């Protein structure tokens, strides 16, 4: 039983920490998000050079063979910088589907270029009527020749505006809410029949609504066996959930620590805010929420080291609940204790708050995961 990082993991941690501190100040971030494409290609190249984009991939695929702990370490630091570069959409989600569901040929086709920072991807999985149910799909892929024709609509596809390739979930058989019959396809994001409505998100990311109209793909677009894609999709979403939780822990750390620091400087009625006992106790609650969230994050990572089994799934779902509650408490209190300044776009604190609010609504909110936790065995 050991929840500490090994030397290699600690090295990643300090390298990312240094990057955030030196090259990713809030001012720099704000410049990046103000202009298209909403992230820095230069940073993305740096991520590739530092090997960060290779972390989750097997050595066979040219990656570093990370187990989850390494991604966690990276994303916790990314959270501290509210990094907007699309690591989660491209590396964790879209490439994750290829990593888990793709053939050797498919992996070779995409993963080396992803690791080199040359490809951006997006996972188009959510539909308006489906909410958080991955299997609730009206998008269809109908066999045509040896390939498929995809028709349907996908909601809030993160990083789609920049994506070179898309991974799409579509139904090859069965009815809307069947768990069988779900297939995953990887395709060129500029394929004929794809139209996008691009938009900015409240947390300064870019995303799209995507319509698929008679999009024809070849047989090599299918990831894994037809109709059996739900398991891979579930695992990708679980890994994505774990990733946003790691990021949220980093955000929560900044939210609570910045608030404590602010309270030490800011004066009201001739007294430092931090000397008011009512606020002290509330900041202690923020600290406790952070500390416990981080602990559960690390315990979940330790389970993932054992493999993506039922215990790991159960811990990921528990973690999402814990982080969701902690982030809401800490975020709301951070704004409240910052007072008027906390409401402004000018201070970084509101941006952390918005990021954790979005994370709470991603991949299933608190109540969704509370129910899933109850339904999972173990």
């Amino acid at each position: 039983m050991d929840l500490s990082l090994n030397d290699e993991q600690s090295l990643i941690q300090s390298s990312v920490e240094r990057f955030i501190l030196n090259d990713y100040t809030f001012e720099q971030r704000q410049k990046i998000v103000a202009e298209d494409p909403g992230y820095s290609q230069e940073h993305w190249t740096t991520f590739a050079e530092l090997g960060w984009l290779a972390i989750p991939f097997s050595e066979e695929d040219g990656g570093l063979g990370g187990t989850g702990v390494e991604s966690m370490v990276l994303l916790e630091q990314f959270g501290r910088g509210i990094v907007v570069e699309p690591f989660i959409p491209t590396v964790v989600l879209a490439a994750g589907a290829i990593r888990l569901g793709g053939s050797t040929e498919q992996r070779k086709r995409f993963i080396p270029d992803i690791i080199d920072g040359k490809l951006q991807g997006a996972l188009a999985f959510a539909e308006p009527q489906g909410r958080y149910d991955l299997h609730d799909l009206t998008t269809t892929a109908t066999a045509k020749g040896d390939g498929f024709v995809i028709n349907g609509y996908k909601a809030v596809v993160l990083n789609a505006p920049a994506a070179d390739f898309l991974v799409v979930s579509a139904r090859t058989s069965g009815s809307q809410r069947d768990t069988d019959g779900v297939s995953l396809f990887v395709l060129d994001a500029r394929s004929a029949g794809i139209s996008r409505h691009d938009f900015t998100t409240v947390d300064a990311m870019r995303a799209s609504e995507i319509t698929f109209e008679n999009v024809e793909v070849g047989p090599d677009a299918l990831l894994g066996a037809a109709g059996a894609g739900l398991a891979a999709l579930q695992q990708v979403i679980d890994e994505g959930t774990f990733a946003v939780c790691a990021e949220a822990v980093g955000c929560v750390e900044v939210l609570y620590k910045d608030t404590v620091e602010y309270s030490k400087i800011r004066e009201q009625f001739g007294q430092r805010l931090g000397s008011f006992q009512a606020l002290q106790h509330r900041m202690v609650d923020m600290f406790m929420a952070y500390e416990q969230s981080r602990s559960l994050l690390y315990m979940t990572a330790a389970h993932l080291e054992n493999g993506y089994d039922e215990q790991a799934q159960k811990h990921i779902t528990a973690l999402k609940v814990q982080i969701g509650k902690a982030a809401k408490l800490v975020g709301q209190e951070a704004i409240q204790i910052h007072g008027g300044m906390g409401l402004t776009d000018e201070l970084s604190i509101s941006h952390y708050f918005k990021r954790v609010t979005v994370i709470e609504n991603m991949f299933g909110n608190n109540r969704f995961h509370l129910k899933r936790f109850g339904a999972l065995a173990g």
Partner: protein
Amino acid sequence: MDIAFTEEELAFQQEVSDFLDEAWPEEMRRKYSRNALENFSRDDRIAWQQRLAEKGWAAINWPTEHGGAGFSHTQKYLFDLELARAGAPAMVPMGVSMVAHVIMKFGTDEQKQEYLPDILHSRTFWCQGYSEPGSGSDLASLSTKAEDHGDHYLVNGVKTWNTLGQHADMIFCLVRTSQEAKRQMGISFLLIDMKSPGITVEPIITMDQPKEGFQEINTVYFEDVQVPKENLVGEEGKGWTCAKYLLEFERGNAQSPGLYESLNHVEWMARETQSGEGAVFDDDDFRDRFNDLKIQTMAMEATEMRILGSLSAGQNVGPESSLLKTRGSEISQAISELAGEVAGYYGIPLDQSTPLDDDDFIPAGPEHFSGVSQKYFNLRKTSIYAGSNEIQRNIMAKLVLGLE
């Protein structure tokens, strides 16, 4: 005890409802419910307020001698209720509900004649200059200076958290006219023309990211601004008295009608929105939490009835207003949180639509989810402004519980 309304009261309610059908038609309602933030345009707002004034319903808290509506407490409640139902905005408070009361109480006859009719008929748009950078809830720490230059004051300083100043014709300000040992002394209450040379207005972008020109708050800079002496309200150095008097009017309105309306809207959205086999509203857990907020609102409504109902006309709400302010903000924030939960992924897109006719913004998802998260972000302000909820709790601890 009597929970029922009299026939007269019900007739009044009908009258309000009929008026709203015409004065705030479905078309306006649709225009402003496109985005949860409901950023009204200056023109629509003024036109609407002038309609209210024509009807004699612009000034519901004024004495009738000055053109007040002369509503009873029940009528006020019913008026708020119908307004909330129709989605029509309340009067912008800075003129009619704030500075007007100070002018009525402390102003000269000349000032009353000059300002009150224009306020009543929305011919002048007022804003407020109280807070300063760094003052937060500690208002008395202000440092904007007004130096005596014979026939005028020379004003220098910065005011912030200024609501809708970009639209305003006039601003009422607390300024320091002398340095006294006790900080509350030496503060004066000044009316300043926003077109005076030396005034600049800069928007503060809040985290809900309203479109340019639709910001709620601003910083106002005063650089050698000349203000005629006749623009002083009350005695020089007694501005704190005016400010305290005004504060009593800030938190006296019934909030439960608006809260019910927000709840109804969330219920409607949750019935429209699918989740798993059924609608979000069919989920037991969701409905329980929704109903818990509804019950909190009922308790709030009952408290408003008890507190507001027990006052005779013209009386001010005491420290209990702190309770209404605190609970009202907490409940409204919780409702907006629930709305965000209903929206799910569609809480993520940023909505920067405006109510302007040439705006061709297309929302990412269903229109009723547009700006839902931004509304949640925006409402964080309600526990911070007008005396943060911490200040309200301090007030209640002291004045209600006698703790020091």
